[in-house]
């Protein structure tokens, strides 16, 4: 780091400022402690997720039923395959990063450039994949009905497979329009309306005798409870208040809204880290191409950004486990 340091004239003395008791440069050590504090932030998020999950342990959504999409395979039930692929992409970009660091130790500029290039590409693909996951999660798949108590009722056929609202909802005359700010009160509006209203869903349910309601309460074997036809009708008549399609911070067709909240916050915060990691990688990448580190005689900056990049991968390993597997 001689390029920026100001000499004090006391080098070599114990308190001269060049002491490295941990044998790591100032920058690298501070990157480690930044990572430690960031790790605690993520731990806080994940532990809070655990708290909420334990609180609703008998009604938490089953990840295999929520994340079932794979690009270009519409309608195919592919639980977890896509997240697994994303995990691989991130691990592999970690490998190319550590190869870039290693090439830097040997002052091989061209190798550093190529490995960093592949790392950046991997990071971009990962962020894109996460955006795609989000859009699937937000738009939802089957749709559900929410009860007075904020619980979710989903619909299944006789085989126990989930059924989408659009496949059975009746079409009734309806003159409700989206509430905008110029209608009633200037500060009240809604962002979107569900495609069906509750009356249409209930009517369609009555017309299809083999449909049943599935609640969010889990049975002993970890599956969602399916009500009898009579209980289903009674539940819809007495408790249902509205239709939910997809998920946002307030409503979630898959189960407790907290699941969606934590999904958005944790994967969002992680995605933000990947994004900023890509940006920092690009900056260092440009510096490598310009020969900045060649002239400085050390590729330590690549090592530092590498530490950050591996940390992002490390966090994803935990997010993957606690969101998709456990």
């Amino acid at each position, binding site marked *: 780091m001689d390029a920026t340091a100001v000499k004090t004239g006391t080098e070599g003395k114990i308190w001269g400022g060049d002491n490295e*008791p*941990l044998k790591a440069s100032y920058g690298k050590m501070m990157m480690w402690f930044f990572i430690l504090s960031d790790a605690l932030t993520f731990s806080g998020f994940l532990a809070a997720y655990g*708290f909420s999950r*334990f609180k609703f342990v008998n009604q938490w959504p089953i990840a295999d039923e929520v994340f079932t999409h794979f690009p270009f395979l519409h309608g195919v039930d592919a639980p*977890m395959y896509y997240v697994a692929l994303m995990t691989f992409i991130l691990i592999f970009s970690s490998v190319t990063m550590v190869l870039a660091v290693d090439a830097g130790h040997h002052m091989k500029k061209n190798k550093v450039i190529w490995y960093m290039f592949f790392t950046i590409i991997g990071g971009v693909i990962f962020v894109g994949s996460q955006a795609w996951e989000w859009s699937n999660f937000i738009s939802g798949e089957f749709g559900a009905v929410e009860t007075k108590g904020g619980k979710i009722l989903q619909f299944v056929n006789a085989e126990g497979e989930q059924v989408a609202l659009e496949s059975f909802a009746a079409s009734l005359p309806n003159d409700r329009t989206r509430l905008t700010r110029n209608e009633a009160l200037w500060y009240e509006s809604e962002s979107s309306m569900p495609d069906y209203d509750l009356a249409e869903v209930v009517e369609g349910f009555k017309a299809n005798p083999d449909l049943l309601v599935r609640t969010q309460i889990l049975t002993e074997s970890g599956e969602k409870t399916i009500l009898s036809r009579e209980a289903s009708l009674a539940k819809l008549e007495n408790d249902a208040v509205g239709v939910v399609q997809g998920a946002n911070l307030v409503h979630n067709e898959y189960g407790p809204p907290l699941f969606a909240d934590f999904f958005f916050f944790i994967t969002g915060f992680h995605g933000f880290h990947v994004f900023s990691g890509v940006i920092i990688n690009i900056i260092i990448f440009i510096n490598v191409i310009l020969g900045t580190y060649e002239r400085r005689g050390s590729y330590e900056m690549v090592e530092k950004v590498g530490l950050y990049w591996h940390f992002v991968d490390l966090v994803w390993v935990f997010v993957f*486990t606690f969101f*998709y597997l456990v």
Partner: protein
Amino acid sequence: MAHETSNHGSATKRIWTVFAILSVVTIVEVILGIVRPEFLVETHLFRMHLLNWVFIVLTLYKAYYITWAFMHMEHETKGLRRAVVWTGIFLVCYLIFILLTEGDYIFDVYHDGYISWDF
């Protein structure tokens, strides 16, 4: 630079070995997650089924390799290693203990109380 890399060949060999380990562990996790073997789901240990413990152990195993091999923690001095790793582990253990206990208590309140939450 704090650590001295040995010759180029062995460093890259180590990287690819670790990549192989991480890949295999991830594949095993995904397979277990899709198959969900009966005996692992039905056996319980400390209020969680065994499968979850398997996932957690495998995750920590992966985390170890990422930190030690990819982040070169194995080449850092003992002091730096302990300052970073132990601080994290102590605080995380505390957080997990306190929050999960509390979450479990609130579940009991919801579940065994005289108020119905399912309406």
